């Protein structure tokens, strides 16, 4: 087990180093070169000379890369071109919003997807199954930003059920502790704030959940179908075990392994989806930040940090998923 962890960690380090090299190359090839890209409209000859010196662009390329890595490791991503604030601060403000949204979407995807996939498999070929297959196919074919606008139109403009955008109502007197508004409300016992934040969260989370939901339903269904044909399920039934026991201990426990992997892989899709969803609902998280960093004059320091952060989150989540295998499936521990 330890060897597996060490090997995966090494792989992770290699991936991240490769990524940093790629970002380094990317930064140097931006239109107008790295200095112009970093300075943007604030470029004056003095500033340029200063930055060339500060970033060491007059030095050999390997030295430059070493310095670049040094800054990355120390978390120094420079300042945002748009706001002038340190990049780490800018990202730190937006990070909880996206995590909250992504977590809510994942809860919806798993909470709905696993039971639906199980039921579809159990009622294979019947109406429920066909509906869920059709639904998942539709789910992956809809541009999610369009779905966002559609939901917003139906539920806020026409039915006034949900707020159209933002994370919390203006005028809501909420105390910011962690940046996760739902959690903050619970921590400070401002339950009205929690309710309000949840109320804002529902539509964006549903929008963002569509693709992961479709994937989870499909994988669960396929994997439950596999397990249903196993001898041990027949044996369990023959032993006269209760239906609930068979479902929980025999079928789902075995069928959920591929689902867990999928959940790890879906973090990437969630981050992509967040860019689109947050734009629709004006959410103010990392997705909004990515959008603003491109459209409002390219804010490369922020974009660079966001790329690295997204990759870091993705590889770490997938590492955790792989490691969690050992706890779910004892066979992995032996191997």
């Amino acid at each position, binding site marked *: 087990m330890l060897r597996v962890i060490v090997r995966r960690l090494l792989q992770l380090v290699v991936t991240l180093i490769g*990524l940093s090299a790629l970002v380094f190359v990317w930064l140097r090839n931006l239109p107008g070169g790295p200095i112009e890209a970093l300075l943007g409209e604030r470029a004056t000859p003095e500033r340029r000379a200063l930055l060339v010196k500060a970033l060491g662009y007059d030095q050999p390329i390997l030295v430059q890369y070493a310095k670049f890595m040094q800054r990355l490791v120390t978390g120094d991503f420079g300042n945002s071109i748009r706001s002038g604030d340190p990049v780490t601060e800018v990202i730190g403000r937006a990070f909880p919003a996206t995590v909250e949204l992504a977590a809510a979407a994942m809860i919806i995807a798993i909470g709905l997807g696993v039971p639906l996939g199980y039921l579809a498999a159990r009622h294979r070929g019947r109406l429920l199954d066909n509906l869920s297959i059709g639904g998942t*196919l539709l789910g992956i074919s809809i*541009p999610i930003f369009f779905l966002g606008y559609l939901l917003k139109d139906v539920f806020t403009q026409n039915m006034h059920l949900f707020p159209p955008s933002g994370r919390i109502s203006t005028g809501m007197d909420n105390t910011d502790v962690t940046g996760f508004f739902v959690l903050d409300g619970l921590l400070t016992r401002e339950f009205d704030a929690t309710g309000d934040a949840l109320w804002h969260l529902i539509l964006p989370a549903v929008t963002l959940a569509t693709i992961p939901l479709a994937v989870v339903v499909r994988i669960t269904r396929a994997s439950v179908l596999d397990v249903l044909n196993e001898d041990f399920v027949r044996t369990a039934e023959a032993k006269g075990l209760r239906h609930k026991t068979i479902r929980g201990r025999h079928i789902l426990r075995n069928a959920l392994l591929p689902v867990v992997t999928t959940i790890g892989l879906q973090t990437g899709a969630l981050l992509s989806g967040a860019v*689109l969803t947050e734009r629709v609902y004006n959410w103010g998280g990392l997705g909004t930040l990515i959008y603003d960093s*491109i*459209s409002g004059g390219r804010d490369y320091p922020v974009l660079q940090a966001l790329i690295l952060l997204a990759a870091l989150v993705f590889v770490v989540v997938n590492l955790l998923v792989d490691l969690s295998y050992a706890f779910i499936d004892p066979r992995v521990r032996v191997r």
Partner: protein
Amino acid sequence: MSDPITRPTVGAPRESVDPSAVTEKPEGTLPRGLDRLGERKRARLEQLAQATADKGGVSLVRDAFRRLRRNPTAMVGAAIVALFVLVAIFAPLLAPHDPAQRFDELTRNLTVDNIPGASSEFPLGSDPLGRDFLSRMIHGSRQTLFVGVLATLIGLALGVLVGALAGAFGGWVDNILMRFTDVMLALPALLLAISLVALASRSSQWTVILAVAIVNVPIFARLLRGSMLAQRESDHVLAARALGVKRGAIVLRHMLPNAMTAVIVQATLTLSTAILEAASLSFLGLGDPDINRAEWGLMLGVDGQRYFEVRPELAYFPAAAIIVVALGFTLLGEGMREAIDPKSRR
């Protein structure tokens, strides 16, 4: 692939030397007893070859194609795709107007909160610039097909190159190439596409196509590498190696064609995601800046978004078109996957 066992025996003229039977020694040089043994073996082989020849074996591809035709969902997908391609081909004949022309009777009624709706002359009404929306929708099929197909093909070509190299050489080549795909896969698809588009000093249709293509390279590469590695250990590759077939020929003629099926299925599925990804880039303002170009993703992402409150049809129609076409490619791709590997059928 020619059958190396039956080939020298079936009707090989004794006088002329069959070029494909270079390993076979001329009759006279064999010792008497062995010669007769060879004769008997040959007769037996001929008999065996005859046995299968009568049955008329079915190739894997034909077999898969037969299953594909019997799969109703795949056929629905194929019908959608066929219709889409036909509309794209005959767009200039189908469209009632020039998609780039701005009509006075439409522009006259354009205001901030009004875009003229359907009339007998313009069945789907106007777009925000006073052009015929129906004609733009019809012509949009061409550009959408163009973007989707080209992005997929470029991604496929690069991915096949990387995957084939990794799968053929293995070892350190494989290691380096796969670490590279790891890095690319570590980035969320859309973020990778955004960073790629950012590299261009000015966005154009080509930056979108290339960005979407490159995002798909690691997926194709990984897939092909996996099935190539599986092929390496297979019996027919071993047989080819034993026969002394050159390494390059083994890779190109024995491994690659057999490993490509999965990649082709993936390419069909990618056609749908490529169209969706191009639409997402347009939505983020990173699409093609050419206002005359009619492409569904662009129409949905730019005008559909901007004028959703004024005239939601501007979003509904391109969105519906994209959904149907994406669904068509997905159904066809899934059907192909099931046809090639019936075990995957669920």
